[in-house]
């Protein structure tokens, strides 16, 4: 006769079974981790399915399309000015930069050239959008690595640029300022002085960030040697922008591709880094932001006077033809392949967005890294979901 009651025995057996169940369920080998679509570390709704073997990533697959708006279908039923509004929203942090290659392609097909003042102001806003875009990157970089303070400085100083854009175009994020043949209107009075003051503040911010974040030993330990992408791999995947230059490829479309915009008229430098790791990518973007402030000041100094709009008909009909124009956007190379059949709107537009290619390298670069480094690599690659998903 047992001293332990039957109920106690049953409870014991059930307890052992439950423990065994939990041991199996909590098996951490071959664990699949889902970096959300909703996630604080990805700039938008990107989902990365990561398979882990203990601490290391075995396989990583980005799943996109949560923000796919069907731009290439939408533009087939719209006219060129309407598409200009749409196109602002691809890379929404540096919005003006999205309009420029599209307008340039249309202008090439129409054989129309915008007057010099318009080209200079286009370049000015292009660089302002680069500053707006990259300063947010710099702030966000800190947050994703744990430094919670730089992001506030970034947003505070970015406000200056957004106020400038708003004063001239009416919109902080979506200026919708470019037109075929020139710009919507001229700069407001006082813009030049405000812009100069803003550039000074932004340079201070870059210097501050360089000491606070880049000079920090912990930051260096988290980013140096992490996520190295060799130059040939980068070219094969079509990486562009700072990602490519951080792998040592000296290629910048502003300098290397002839363009009606004013980059060849000012004096500036292309920044590269030989390492190809996360630190290099972040560092190149910091230097580019600072360089952009210098470029803006030169553009302000050399602004030619004159009209800001060429003579174009009110209803724009673009002649038959095909044109490809790409520019060095803040995120990378963005281009539009415009097929026109002589109508008020294009027949087909292929939108080549930089982040789509930039992310395609993630399955390759994330193999074998530690889980904690996944965030570092993703944040250093820098993408905008609107750019990825179009």
């Amino acid at each position, binding site marked *: 006769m047992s001293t332990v009651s039957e109920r106690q025995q049953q409870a014991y057996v059930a307890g052992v079974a439950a423990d065994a169940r*939990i041991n199996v*369920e*909590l098996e*951490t080998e071959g*664990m699949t*981790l889902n*970096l959300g679509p909703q996630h*604080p*570390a990805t700039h938008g709704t990107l989902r990365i399915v990561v398979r882990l073997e203990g601490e290391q990533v075995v396989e990583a697959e980005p799943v996109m399309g949560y923000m796919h708006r069907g731009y290439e279908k939408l533009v087939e039923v719209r006219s060129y000015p309407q598409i200009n509004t749409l196109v602002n929203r691809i890379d929404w942090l540096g919005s003006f930069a999205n309009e420029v290659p599209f307008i340039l392609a249309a202008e090439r097909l129409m054989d129309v050239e915008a007057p010099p003042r318009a080209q200079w102001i286009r370049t000015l806003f292009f660089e302002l959008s680069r500053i707006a875009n990259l300063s947010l990157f710099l702030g966000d970089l*800190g947050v*994703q*690595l*744990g*430094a*919670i*303070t730089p992001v*506030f*400085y970034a947003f*505070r100083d970015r406000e200056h640029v957004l106020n400038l854009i708003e004063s001239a175009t009416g919109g902080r994020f979506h200026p919708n300022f470019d037109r075929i043949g020139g710009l919507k209107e001229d700069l407001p009075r006082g813009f030049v002085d405000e812009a100069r003051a803003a550039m000074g503040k932004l340079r201070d911010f870059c210097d501050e960030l360089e000491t*606070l*974040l880049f000079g*920090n030993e*912990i*930051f260096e*330990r*988290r980013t140096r040697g992490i996520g190295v992408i060799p130059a040939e791999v980068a070219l094969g995947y079509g990486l562009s922008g700072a990602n490519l230059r951080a792998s040592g490829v000296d290629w910048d479309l502003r300098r290397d591709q002839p363009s009606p915009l004013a980059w060849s008229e000012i004096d500036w430098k292309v920044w590269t880094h030989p390492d190809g790791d996360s630190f290099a990518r972040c560092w190149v973007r910091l230097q580019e932001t600072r360089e952009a402030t210098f470029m803006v000041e030169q553009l302000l100094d050399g602004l030619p006077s004159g009209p800001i709009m060429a003579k174009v008909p009110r209803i724009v009909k673009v002649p038959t033809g095909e044109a490809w124009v790409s520019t060095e956007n803040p995120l990378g190379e963005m281009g539009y392949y415009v097929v026109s059949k002589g109508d008020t709107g294009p027949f087909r537009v292929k939108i080549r967005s930089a982040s789509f290619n930039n992310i395609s390298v993630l399955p390759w670069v994330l193999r074998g890294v*530690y*889980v*904690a*480094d*996944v*965030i570092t690599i993703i944040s250093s690659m820098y993408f905008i979901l609107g750019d990825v998903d179009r």
Partner: protein
Amino acid sequence: MIAALDIPYWAQTAIKVAVALGLVSGSAFIFAYVFLYKIMSHMQSRLGPMEAGPHGILQLLADGVKFLQKEDLVPERADRFVFAAAPVVVMISTVLLYVVIPASPTLVGADLGAGVFYALAASSLSVIGILMAGWASANKYSLIGGLRAAGQLIAYELPLLLAVVGVVIQAGTLSLSGIVAAQADGEIFGLGAFGQPFVLTQLVGFAIFLVASQAELTQAPFDMPIAESELVAGYMTEYSGFRFLVFYISELATTFAFAALGATLFLGGWWFPGLDTSGGLLSNLVGPAVLFAKIMVVAFVIFWVRFSYPRLREDQLQTFAWKVLIPLSLANIMVTAVLKVAL
């Protein structure tokens, strides 16, 4: 001091318990307001809460009520008892820490002869609570977060302990009141007016103590277990409402306690030049205020580092503890011991 009052023992104990609990929550509230709401905001170039009450003072009340009125969720497969007990264990370890810290010659919960030993032992109880939380949540990610936290806390116990050993050697006693007295009676190159706060001779020890307590509190740059919420959620995921509030209060209160320990061991505790170490009304009035001021200074450093630095990866963190801090603290002990005998 309470022993001086002629009331039965149970009443004395009840008063002490009430004071300790009030102190624990009070300190958490003060820290939350001063450092998290205001100083963090000002460092980040913004104002912080300003709406509720003058300069946002009543925001604390609002947040407290918010936490209390939340639904109490317990995951279905969670071990209910352990799940509920985990925050309590962490809170117990915090409260136990407050027992030994002297606020004046007589204002101390219990003047233990082995005060330092007891304090460090009590603080390590929180590891059990964190492991309980991670395990009982029946969540793979909480478990990993809990295990990482446990590994980190255990790793940084050693430098913490070894850094304090240098102070003990120099003071010659484990009792915290005795250490304050030793600093009060000491001399700097023959000048006795300012006493000898051990931060001067034990600078290395103080630095190690600060770094190790940063890690013990899982603050940045050592907050991988909590900021696991990048990838997974930490051991606190499944907790909501009041249980989460208990975790949070104990985190802030432990910060207060560690800052108090640091102030007592290295900065001279409640003593200020002119105060009498053996008792007296002036010491009992001014002592707590002095200690509070020193606590705020140490805590400011702790939080300042928290707001400024990115976080270390888990393996970098462990390497730092085992390969850098422990050898350094061992060397510190050696040098202290040699100099104590020689000088």
